[in-house]
């Protein structure tokens, strides 16, 4: 089972996001970057498949600037075999379609049985790359995956995915693109030997030209803004619960008019 795991490096969820004064983007100084949490589920699932079938490879595929090497190394320390790092200035802050094109080109060069993506990245929140990659490679997609069982003959998989108000059980032929959702597994931590080994694992560097991609932006941001500042409202302290509850419930009807 050869799995390609598409992995993005994103600001840690603890990050306080600030918009640049000119509104062209966010202030990146001092941001701590981590692996996109949904991509960690992908890495873990791919590793489990390799362990289960006692064969195959887990290849990390990342598009992004120099700093992303750290995220790839972390995945390698978890146990992935090697990495492909597409690092090209023309792709910094590229839109989901351009990223999907790059991933599709790299995946085609590489070969695969399965491709994993996170169902979305927690920075730009587009959530489009997985489905786009599937379409560009003419593969089936199963998004929001919470359970994966590969058939013994590795020709198909039974997959559970989140749908509105429940779950859908799907049978999908391989190869396909799966997008990982929370609940799929509990990602392992990198072990100390794992971290040591990761230092020697190979990361192939590629440019857009290596993949025959000329990036043409399908989407462009025009202005970033901070959300409207939310101020603390009324606070009821040192009161009988019944009294406080009555005041607030009434206010929701008469003042806030939401019930």
């Amino acid at each position: 089972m050869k799995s390609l795991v598409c992995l993005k490096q994103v600001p840690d969820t603890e990050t306080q996001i600030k918009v640049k004064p000119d509104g062209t983007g966010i202030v990146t100084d001092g941001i701590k970057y981590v692996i996109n949490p949904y991509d960690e589920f992908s890495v873990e699932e791919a590793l489990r498949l390799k362990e289960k079938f006692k064969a195959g490879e887990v290849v990390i595929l990342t598009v992004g600037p120099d700093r992303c090497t750290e995220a790839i190394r972390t995945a390698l320390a978890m146990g992935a075999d090697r990495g492909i790092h597409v690092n090209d200035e023309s792709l910094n802050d590229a839109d989901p379609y351009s990223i999907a094109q790059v991933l599709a080109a790299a995946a085609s060069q590489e070969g695969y049985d399965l491709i994993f993506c996170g169902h979305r990245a927690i920075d730009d929140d587009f959530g489009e790359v997985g489905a786009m990659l599937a379409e560009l490679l003419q593969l089936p997609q199963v998004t929001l995956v919470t359970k994966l069982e590969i058939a013994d003959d590795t020709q198909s998989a039974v997959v559970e995915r989140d749908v509105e108000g429940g779950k859908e059980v799907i049978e999908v032929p391989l190869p396909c693109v799966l997008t990982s959702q929370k609940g799929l597994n509990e990602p392992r931590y990198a072990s100390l030997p794992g971290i040591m080994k990761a230092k020697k694992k190979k990361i192939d560097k590629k440019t857009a030209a290596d993949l025959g991609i000329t990036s043409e932006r399908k989407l462009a941001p025009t202005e970033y803004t901070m959300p409207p500042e939310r101020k603390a409202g009324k606070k009821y302290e040192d009161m009988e619960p019944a009294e406080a509850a009555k005041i607030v419930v009434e206010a929701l009807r008469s003042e806030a008019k939401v019930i």
Partner: protein
Amino acid sequence: MSKVMIYGEIKGGKLKKTAFELAGAGRKLADELGGDLGAVVMGSQAEQFASELGKYGVDTVFVVESPELEAYNSEYFAQALAQVAKDKQPEILLISHSMQGKDLAPRTAAKLGVATIADCISFRLDGNKLVGKRPMYAGKCYAEWVANGSPQMASARPNVLKIEESPKAGAVEKIAFTPDAGRKTYVTKDLVLDTSGKVDLTEAEIIVSGGRGMGGPDYALLEEMAGIFGPTATVGASRAAVDAGWRSHSDQVGQTGKTVTPNLYVACGISGSIQHLAGMGSSKVIVAINKDTEAPIFTKADYGIVGDLFKVVPEFNKELKVLLAE
């Protein structure tokens, strides 16, 4: 000519409310562009919704029928939607950022060689270019985006756009569809739906959410409150509660869960981490119930009650019952 087109999602034999939200936004854009508004609906049950869509501003309803379109499948639906878009050449194509829309929009976009401005909370035109405003970093900031290419695709966050009546013809045009046999897709084996009729967090009008302060998996008090509010209310949870195994991951509100925008968010025993505040900070009204007066959630709450949630919530439910019974 439909200059603007929307996709109307059908669920459980009903047209979803999001279709009317899109119709409202689509109508305005079509009027400004000086063109018609079209709607695409799929399946043999779809035609019946034409008059309803007409009432909310749709000129032409494109009904795509085929055995493959009776139940949702990403490949077939994306093929059908892309086919209509290629055929009718709308300048703008709008989809809901619902669970289905998140699966359908990017695949359709890729078939059309474009990308979707996903999860927009408002739309405007700059000249004849669509501008979509959307939260990023789970709502820690916002950005306006424009789309290059044709059609300009965007998806809209459910429960944000206004529904407005604007009677138009709602004329039906049937479209034949034969799937591309060269494409492999999956087969749905089973659909396990929560029969309680619970609305998804992202589409709920009222969310009653519990965090670490719940102390365990017993959410009966919050379920009771959601029940009193009625079918548009649902129960959510903080990451702490989900990670503790008290609630399902699908209930999680926050940066690694769902970003929500209900009319009312009641946070019980939730301190308000930065990830959680990002995910629910654009709720219209926030109520916080927490015993720690220093909890960050109080800095965002319109109404805060400092106290033990196990004492406050029962009283709250009692008051609600009385008020809503009136």
